[in-house]
């Protein structure tokens, strides 16, 4: 099988280049990451980030034939040759397929991804009804791989100001959480020209999410929550 892999070592290479490889597929090669790791035994200078190898950690998010995805859960036999592998678009490249996700996690942390509740803690735990717990489905499963944000044109244009689809999906996860008491503050924080409203509903995020989540729907729900708060707000005396 033929591969064309993005190579860049900032300590050695003046600029990035694509390097071609050819490797026969073995019976045990099921996912793309299996083949990349075998390629690495032939050329140990290829750099890729990986950890769990089963689509849970999100470490091995790369651009595969123009589309972001996780190498560990992408069946290799269905890919068009040559398989073109690049680092996640728009993220600064550290080396080869490894990108710097500092900006991504900075935006993620900016939405305060934790429960905010100043009420006295109960003896055991803060309980939720099954209905309230159900509201978190489709939100809590995000593994922060960055596939969505990296493929979002709005994030390309304003990566330092637009929270991005992954961060906004997480924001919605805490906005709808019945145990959280900072809904108003969270909505206020996002009601800005950039942080939420740079989303143009392009929906690349939902298209490429390897976990099948829908950040664009979460973003729409945040907007509707803002509208609802605006309508319910009592006029100033």
């Amino acid at each position, binding site marked *: 099988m033929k591969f064309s892999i993005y190579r860049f070592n900032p300590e050695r290479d003046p600029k990035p280049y694509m390097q071609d490889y050819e490797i026969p597929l073995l019976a045990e090669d099921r996912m793309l990451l299996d083949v990349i790791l075998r390629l690495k035994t032939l050329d140990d200078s290829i750099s890729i980030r990986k950890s769990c190898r089963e689509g849970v950690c999100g470490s091995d998010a790369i651009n595969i034939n123009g589309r972001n995805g996780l190498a560990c859960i992408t069946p290799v036999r269905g890919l068009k040759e040559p398989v073109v592998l690049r680092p996640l678009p728009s993220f600064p490249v550290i080396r080869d397929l490894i990108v710097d996700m500092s900006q991504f996690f900075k935006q993620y942390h900016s939405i305060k991804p934790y429960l905010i509740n100043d009420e006295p803690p109960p003896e055991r735990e803060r309980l939720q009804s099954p209905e309230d717990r159900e509201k978190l489905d489709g939100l809590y499963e995000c593994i922060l791989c960055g596939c969505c944000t990296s493929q979002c044109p709005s994030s390309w244009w304003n990566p330092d100001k637009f929270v991005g689809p992954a961060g906004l999906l997480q924001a919605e996860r805490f906005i709808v959480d019945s145990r959280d008491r900072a809904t108003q503050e969270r909505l206020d924080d996002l009601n800005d*020209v950039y942080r939420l409203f740079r989303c143009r509903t392009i929906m690349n995020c939902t298209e490429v999410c390897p976990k099948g989540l829908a950040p664009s729907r979460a973003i729409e729900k945040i907007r509707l929550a803002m509208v609802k708060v605006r309508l319910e707000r009592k006029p100033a005396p």
Partner: protein
Amino acid sequence: MKTTMTGLRAWLVQRVSAVYMLGFVVFVLGHFLVDPPGSYPAWRDWMRSPAVDSAASVFCATLLAHVWVGIRDVALDYLQPVVVRVFALWFLGVGLAGAGVWLICTLWPQRG
């Protein structure tokens, strides 16, 4: 909640104006299909009826607001240098104000 013309308010203006404009266009096209005016004076009289006149006035206002929010969004995305962006938005504002005056002078000469 913030009340500046930035996030939610601009988004609402864009959505509400789009829905209104769509409704107005469907209304006008529907009228022309069902009861087309036979002559220019008939069309002018229909346009000058209070209901249509008011609806057309709101249409023009929503069109200008919609264009402002839409092109402002494009400027926020693509025009990164602040000076260029401010100049572009100023140019847009002046252009839209001129278009508004021109619309009033054309469609409602008695007001202009």
